[in-house]
């Protein structure tokens, strides 16, 4: 699992870095700073897991918690925006609802499912007797 989470965190960091800094123009601090910070944390935790550093699990926990809380906020924001726009525009907002729904489906695996799995695994690691 350690290796799997190392790869997945590295992948998340890569998606964030390429997606935000490679594809999106022009630069905007409000997007760049959180994306940069999150990508760095994910990358550090991935490297620590790969290298089996003593603080690797703490770094993984930090990355998982930040992603999980950020994910809850982001998903909530998208859902409320969908409902707001649907309330204002009625049936005319159908396309936007569909697109936002797709965005949600794309967000959930990275922002909620992955950190939940990591947090559950970390809990199990903590409960296992130390050699």
């Amino acid at each position, binding site marked *: 699992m350690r290796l799997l989470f190392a790869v997945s965190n590295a992948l998340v960091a890569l998606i964030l870095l390429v997606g935000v800094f490679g594809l999106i123009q022009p*630069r905007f601090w409000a997007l760049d700073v959180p994306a940069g910070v999150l990508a760095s944390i994910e990358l550090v935790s991935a490297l620590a897991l790969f290298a089996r550093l003593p603080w690797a699990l703490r770094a993984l926990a930090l990355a998982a918690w930040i992603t999980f809380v950020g994910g809850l906020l982001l998903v*909530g924001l998208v859902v409320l925006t969908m*409902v707001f726009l*649907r309330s204002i525009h009625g049936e*005319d907002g159908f396309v936007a609802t569909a697109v936002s729904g797709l965005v949600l489906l794309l967000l959930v695996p990275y922002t909620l499912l992955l950190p939940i799995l990591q947090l559950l695994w970390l809990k199990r690691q903590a409960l296992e007797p130390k050699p």
Partner: protein
Amino acid sequence: MTGRTLARVLALYALTLALGALFMWRALRLDRARTARGPSIVSVWRGGVRIARKVVTGDATPVLVAEGALPGATHTTDEIIDSAPIWALNRFLFAASVAPLRDGVSVSYRGRDAYATPDDLLKIEAYESALQVGPVGLVLGTDTDKVLATLATELGTTPDELLRDGKFRRFAVRRHTDFPRRLEAKDVNVSALREAVLSAAYYLSHNQKRDGSFRYEVDAMTGEDAPDYNFPRHAGATYFLARAGNQLHDARLFRAARRAGEYMAHTTVRCGAHACFGEGDQVDIGASALALLTYVELLNGGANEFRDAALDLAGFLRAQQLENGDFQHFYSVKEQHPINVQVEYYTGEAAFALSRVARISQNEQDLAAASRALAFLVHRSPLFLGAHYFWGAEHWTCQVLEDLWQRAPDRRALQFCLDWQAANRNLQLDSPPALPEYDGGLSRGPFVSPRLTPLASRLEAAVATLSVARSAGVGKAELDLLEREIQRGFAFLLRYQFLPGPTYLMPDPRAVAGGVPGSPVDLHVRIDYPQHAGDAWLRYLELAALDR
């Protein structure tokens, strides 16, 4: 955290989110299908100005009758169907809370009420505003400053105070209006298109100045002109006028085009060995290409005084061409050398102009240059996997395809144009779920009104593609799709052409009669708006004449 705790947290989160969403939905939604609850807002408009208003409950028929009977006055009634609060926490949220063209806004402030109906908001052009979020420009919702200013004026306060202390609501209305026209794809026929083309062309000729230039951009809501001018667009409008004059055998339109052509002759400078069109230290080939197109059209109508200028411009364009078929798009007049920079449109415009002039010059170099440019324009690397999905707004390529088809057919270019039109059909709005009046328009996003000119220019290309597809033996299913796309697009354009438009909101309806506005919420007429719509209609009439 244990699995059980995590599940509890998620359940609590989901419940809170669901309740929040439900509360928001119930608070903000409007039921537009219900019977009108009132009150009714009765207004009288005269000369583009609202001269009287009363808000009444019950029967609105006997209200403001005397004012409505004044010469030139129009009496309108907006019955409020439903209303909902606007959460005016800030300007951004306010802007996003009003559905364009469907909602009005009311405010209660210190015991008094004021209403801005859809007509009021259209009149002050408040239904669309650009919002800057950091470096990103978005078009999202209403212009809050304009709405606040108009309501604050009615209530004798300041916009900031009104935003702070007012209680805002949006409301849906039932009203009778002749704009946009009720017109469907099946209503698009030769006589409707002929009337539309003539009206668009006469809009330009009526708005021509003594020196041959045009009123560049007329705001139908204020009757005012924009102070700037644009030479490529002048050339494009002149090209359309000359085409309309030639094709519809209308001497007045042709005379107007000739005058506009003479205006262009005064803005010619030297670019090396050749003449080029434009002003200042640097010129672009787009202006010269459109000037050349215009001269060719004027020559076709018998204005032989433009022959030498046309051949000289063709020489300039050829001199700007690169080995790969593309062009150097700029020329430094000051330093007398080409500038190898490329932007959208100019290669297509140059290719089209060279293809057209080749018939007059009988110069094989013009034809060869146009063919090479077309091949360059439609070449897409097989390594670019997204080629099927990423398209620009360049609409000249397919017109080059058609113009060259009998002399230098290019099958790859035909496939390119068919693919592009298929992509355009994906962007075409369908009603439902879109509003009925938007059916056939080109989507810019779910909450933004479709613009007319991007659609019109694509339809110029669509008709050119249809023409070639027919002669090339393309299958009936594909031809039917193209035909349907064109008819639906034309219906959308015709709905919004000022024939006569919302005249009661206009100070000078005659000045904009026949004009084509920017969008359902942008009632400005810039000279290229009637040009592109008119040219697309003209092309279709030409094709229909061939059928007959």
